[in-house]
């Protein structure tokens, strides 16, 4: 535990890429392979088990430290990190330095710690869990406790990207970073052997269903004219769904999310559709929720994807489709280095149906009801190109994006190969300008992490008569200086406190930007906004000058193309 905790704090303490890589290499070289495997899983953000609920952990820590629970809660509200709060209040801390300088062995190695104090707790009664937790507290230093608490509650995130981890492993094993990135994507790293084969110089068996690392687009920062001739580019709609790769090989079919989770059980109809693809095919594209001729909003897809296993009812209510926009492998051959134009031609022969989505001028009956089942059998489409003989023409198409339920346009250089990661230059996302309204701060809560102790989590509302109805939570978009100033205003205008949440007198007005609006039964306002963030603080506006619910309803009507 000490070695991994040291790594955690080294990574936390630096912003230098080189220092991070050095720390990672040092860790992977010195850790026994079973620990390295375990550490790698955590670093890659693998789904973690929540062995103990945070509610119980707080209670136990409070009793162990002989403090009232409310005081622990107040401390947490101040610190903004539960793992850290609990580590700091627990008594009888062994010291962090000098103890156990011996590098080859440590009393509680990560893998054993994981087995005994985290996985071993699964299904055990709370009394047993508590005993293990208290014993572990006694064995760990405060810094180790923080990391262990995060592991225990399934929330250990480390500030390194997978690309960085792959680079460190590549440097220590003399392999190409891309090879490691691919292996890391496909293999589940559980045991010492798994780790050793990951860094082995020989090709491994784990390669059979692996996807390719995703090519990520960058937001376009200048006018598209600066990209040169429009003839060198292809434009597609930027679908508002979930990025995925469909892998069809002799070993089977796999649908991979960008988070590198297999989603076969969540999207069985896509798996079925993929059976018609020839062996040795890998598609890159987007999972979308759609009735034929009617694209459903992202919130529906999100609801669908939240089910680990999609049952019959939800499959009927929220049908899924896969819209492919790239072909990475065909006939078992990696074609990523071929130009996009060629890859697309091959894609169209494999996936001939074109996805129409929703026409810009919808509003007819098709948006409201299912169409007959005949055309709904098709689950797999390719993404059509958006025509435009000039950048201006494309700009016009982009303006229809919101009505079409897409996020804007994608611009891809037709000669580009399918790269790894997010290199700039060949793939751009050209999103539609966000919608904006002025909203009033209604509730505030202290932030976490770097913003701990400051009230930076805002719930904003618009006017419905004399009442504020909340429409969005927003966390980002203001400078640190503004956050500090606003924090003071929040403290001085608090009317009520409910635990960490403060209800404030309406005084602060913010310009709220968001990508789209849709109807929602979850929110009291009946409206959900997508990707809300704060565009700026409107010091010049009085609260009553902010938007009303009917303003939002107008936006909703425009977005859905209805009167």
């Amino acid at each position, binding site marked *: 535990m000490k070695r991994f905790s040291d790594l955690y704090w080294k990574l936390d303490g630096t912003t230098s890429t080189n220092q991070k890589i050095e720390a990672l290499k040092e860790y992977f070289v010195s850790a026994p392979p079973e620990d390295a495997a375990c550490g790698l899983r955590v670093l890659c953000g693998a789904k973690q088990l929540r062995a103990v609920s945070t509610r119980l952990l707080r209670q136990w820590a409070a009793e162990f430290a002989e403090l009232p629970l409310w005081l622990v809660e*107040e401390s947490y509200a101040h610190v903004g990190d539960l793992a850290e709060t609990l580590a*700091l*209040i627990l008594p009888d801390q062994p010291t962090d330095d000098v103890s156990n300088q011996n590098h080859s062995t440590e009393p509680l190695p990560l893998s054993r710690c994981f087995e005994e104090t985290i996985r071993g707790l699964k299904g055990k009664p709370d009394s047993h869990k508590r005993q293990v937790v208290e014993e572990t507290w006694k064995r760990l230093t405060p810094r180790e406790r923080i990391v262990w608490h995060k592991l225990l509650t399934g929330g250990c995130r480390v500030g390194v990207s997978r690309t960085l981890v792959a680079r460190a492993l590549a440097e220590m094993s003399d392999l190409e970073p891309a090879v490691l990135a691919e292996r890391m994507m496909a293999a589940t790293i559980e045991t010492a052997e798994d780790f050793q084969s990951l860094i082995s110089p020989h090709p491994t068996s784990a390669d059979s269903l692996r996807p390719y690392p995703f090519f990520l687009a960058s937001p376009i920062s200048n006018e598209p004219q600066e990209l040169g001739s429009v003839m060198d580019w292809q434009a597609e709609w930027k679908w508002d769904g979930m990025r995925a790769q469909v892998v069809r090989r002799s070993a089977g079919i796999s649908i991979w999310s960008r988070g590198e989770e297999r989603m076969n059980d969540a999207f069985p109809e896509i798996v079925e559709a993929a059976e018609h693809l020839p062996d040795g095919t890998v598609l890159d594209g*987007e999972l979308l929720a759609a009735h034929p001729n009617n694209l459903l909003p992202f919130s529906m897809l999100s609801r669908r994807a939240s089910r680990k296993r999609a049952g019959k009812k939800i499959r009927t209510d929220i049908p899924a489709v896969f819209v492919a926009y790239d072909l990475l492998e065909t006939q078992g051959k990696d074609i990523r280095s071929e130009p996009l134009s060629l890859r697309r031609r091959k894609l169209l022969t494999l996936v001939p149906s074109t996805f129409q989505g929703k026409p810009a001028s919808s509003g007819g009956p098709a948006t409201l009801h299912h169409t007959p089942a005949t055309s709904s059998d098709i689950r797999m489409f390719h993404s059509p190109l958006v025509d435009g003989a000039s950048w201006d023409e494309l700009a016009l198409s982009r303006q229809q994006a919101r009505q079409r339920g897409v996020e804007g346009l994608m611009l891809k250089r037709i000669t580009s190969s399918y790269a790894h990661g997010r290199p700039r230059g060949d793939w751009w996302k050209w999103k539609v300008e966000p919608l904006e309204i002025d909203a009033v701060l209604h509730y505030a809560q202290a932030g976490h*992490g770097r913003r701990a102790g400051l009230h930076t989590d805002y719930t904003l509302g618009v006017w419905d008569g004399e009442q504020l109805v909340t429409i969005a939570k927003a966390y980002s978009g203001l400078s*640190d200086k503004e956050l500090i100033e606003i924090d003071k205003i929040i403290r001085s205008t608090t009317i009520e406190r409910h635990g960490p949440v403060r209800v404030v007198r309406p005084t602060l007005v913010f310009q709220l930007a968001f990508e789209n609006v849709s109807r929602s039964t979850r929110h009291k306002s009946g409206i959900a906004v997508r990707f809300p963030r704060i565009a700026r603080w409107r010091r010049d506006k009085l609260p009553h000058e902010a938007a009303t619910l009917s303003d939002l309803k107008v936006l909703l009507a425009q977005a859905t193309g209805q009167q």
Partner: protein
Amino acid sequence: MPDLLEITPKGLFCAAGNFYIDPWRPVSHAVITHAHADHARPGSDRYLCAAPGMHVLRTRMGSQALIDTLKYNEHLSINGVDVSLHPAGHLLGSSQVRVSHRGTTWVVTGDYKLQNDSTCDCFESVPCDVFVTESTFGLPVYRWPAPETVAHEINTWWKANADSGRTSVLLAYALGKAQRLASLLDPSIGPIYGHGAVMKLVEAYRASGVRLPPINRIPPHSRKIGGGRGIVIAPPSAAATTWINRFGETSIAMVSGWMLLRGVRRRRGIPKGFILSDHVDYPDLMQAVQSSGAQRVLVTHGFTDIVARLLTEQGLNAEVLATRFVGETNPDDGVTDEDASDLQAINREPTDTDNKDAEDAQ
């Protein structure tokens, strides 16, 4: 019967003795617990402070101010009210003010700590009926490491920087913390330098007879002072200015009790922090309350409502006393007015991870 001390628009007032303690507006008679700017403000007719704090207060109030002094534990009758000053351990000349009248005794701590500090007298517990305490760090997460341990960490860090030719910079309040830090440094590692704001107070400390290692003024136009082996003590506000760039390659560390929290360190954008405070931590606060023997406790600046609630649950008569010594619980409101200048040190934009999902869709 009215309270012996009460909050008025000008500050904490003793009506029976017609004097104020640490008033925030000019008054005729001000008893000063210590010379930090939020406790000692200019403009009053007469000041009273503990004798060891005379030079420091003079530096702050200017040569024109009328300053009377009282030795620690010496009694003075002000309009029939018994007043005495007792070491608070916060910085040189810092006092707890004991006020006794008609059989009732109040103690106002000002700011205080129980830890050792060779640059000032140690806190002495004074029995009283009503104890007015600060609560800057009044949460159980705040427990200070031993100052010797921190001193060792700082010297080790300094030595490592010196060995690689990087000048070390410690950010700490110019009054109190800076001098305490100097006393903890090991001068065999390299030369010690002080920012101008620090040096003025170093001189006041020396004039008061406090022993400090040699501290140099920073020569003009210097780079790599002390050949890269040097250490500079500067106020946190200096971190945001170009002043800091003159030293070439540096390692910068902030020295503050708030450095205990990872979130605060990250928000300040300073990777290195040393945990050293001139305020009581939570266990020491509890201990100070207990040893005062007071049945009534008034809690000022810091986690006031939380500490008051806790003490109430422990059977004491505890309330919040709203003073203007500092803001509320915001760490960035810090400890003193000096500390407020840290706010300017923060000019990093927040990293936007919140919209990350938006980036992921394609």
